[in-house]
């Protein structure tokens, strides 16, 4: 067995096309799951009739079934009731639904932690529910729940690798393709692991930056902004 570095360098451009797809899929899914998360959390806290139980059921269903089965269900199961989606679209839908379910829980915790006094102050100033949420609860709650949301986000990026199972040309699938031609397992899978580690490290660095920026206690002092104490302890997402 010989480790072939030249092969990895040769295959890098091809892997990069997969990386681009992975990042694109993750970004689209993250934006969507952010929206689902905020909307779902508000619906659950306001206890909107009909919608709230639906959200509860949706969250429990997604959180207690494997993402891979959800992806297969959307890709192979849905066409038989007349809904045919392409691989990429299935990927974005599956990842957004998955990320959204976790994001709802993250944001619900954050929004709930906003002091009741602020809520009441808003109403007594004559704001209606929409404005209380738009200007008070969501901006403050978002800051509180950002760390847990960033964990979910990291998991979404890592879980995009499962889309290889339905043949979406993302990072893992390009690596599998290259292995299928060259049989150089070790080189490919090791570089795959390294690339994912790099993505996760860069992301956790970015999220830590955003966290610092959102943290309004620190925002006043510029010195604190540039110190990255505790950065090493940043977690890399929950699972998957």
């Amino acid at each position: 067995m010989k480790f072939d570095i030249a092969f990895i360098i040769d295959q890098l451009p091809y892997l990069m096309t997969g990386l681009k797809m992975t990042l694109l899929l993750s970004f689209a899914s993250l934006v969507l799951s952010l929206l689902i998360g905020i909307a779902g959390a508000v619906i659950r806290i306001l206890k909107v009739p009909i919608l709230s139980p639906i959200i509860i059921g949706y969250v429990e269903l997604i959180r207690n079934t494997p993402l891979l089965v959800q992806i297969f269900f959307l890709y192979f199961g849905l066409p038989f009731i007349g809904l045919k989606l392409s691989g990429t679209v299935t990927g974005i839908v599956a990842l957004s639904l998955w990320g959204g379910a976790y994001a709802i829980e993250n944001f619900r915790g954050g929004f709930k932690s906003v002091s009741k006094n602020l809520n009441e102050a808003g109403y007594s100033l004559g704001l209606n529910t929409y404005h209380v949420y738009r200007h008070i609860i969501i901006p403050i709650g978002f800051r509180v729940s950002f760390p847990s949301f960033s964990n979910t986000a990291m998991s979404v990026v890592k879980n995009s690798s499962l889309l290889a199972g339905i043949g979406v040309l993302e990072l893992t699938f390009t690596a599998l393709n290259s292995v299928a031609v060259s049989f150089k397992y070790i080189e490919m899978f090791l570089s795959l692991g390294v690339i994912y580690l790099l993505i996760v490290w860069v992301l956790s660095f970015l999220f830590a930056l955003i966290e610092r920026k959102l943290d309004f206690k620190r925002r006043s002092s510029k010195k604190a902004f540039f110190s990255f104490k505790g950065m090493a302890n940043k977690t890399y997402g929950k699972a998957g």
Partner: protein
Amino acid sequence: MNAIIESLPFLLKGFGFTIWLSICCVIVSVLGGVIVGVLRTLENTVIRLASKIFIDVFRGIPTLVVLFLVFFLLPTIGFQIPNFLSALIGLSLWAIANVAEAVRGSIQSIPKTQTEVSYALGLNYVNTMMYVIIPQATKRVLPSIIGILTNLVQSTSLTVLIGNVEFLKSAQITIERITMMGSNNTAVFMLYTLVLAGYFIICYPLSLWSRNLENRLKV
């Protein structure tokens, strides 16, 4: 519909395999996770750094990639192991890292004064851990460990991609058979729903349990 009922024994066998694999992984990963988690809190720099690197690497790489690495790497360096074992190793590596991180968090959440007091009372390191730290830490870490185990059960579905015939694969084989026989196509939809339901039945009680423990902790 008849075709599905006919293949129920086969599906149940796959379901049994999933549960068996989950139980094996749970045992290995809880034992390994506690050990690595305790190592992570030791004073020794080398051991601490090594366990930190282990935890960070296996939490950072997607589970699927860990599985592929184990599945393809071990045979090339001379370990011919069955699919079941490579699934067990891959999933456990991932779960050990996550459990270890939770264990580390819970041990470090116990105030340092507790350790100092027990040293002052003349307990050594092992006794301090056994009688002071671990009993308190266990209560705090249990909800998150059960959460990780729920994820672990779900992750067993990934082993289908390295050739294990577990619940998902048995459903896929059934689907292939049914579509080949040319009977009705709604069977695909129903079978995938059945798989979703099967995993839900295992995971839902676990996550309820975890939430219950967490709520009890808050009060």
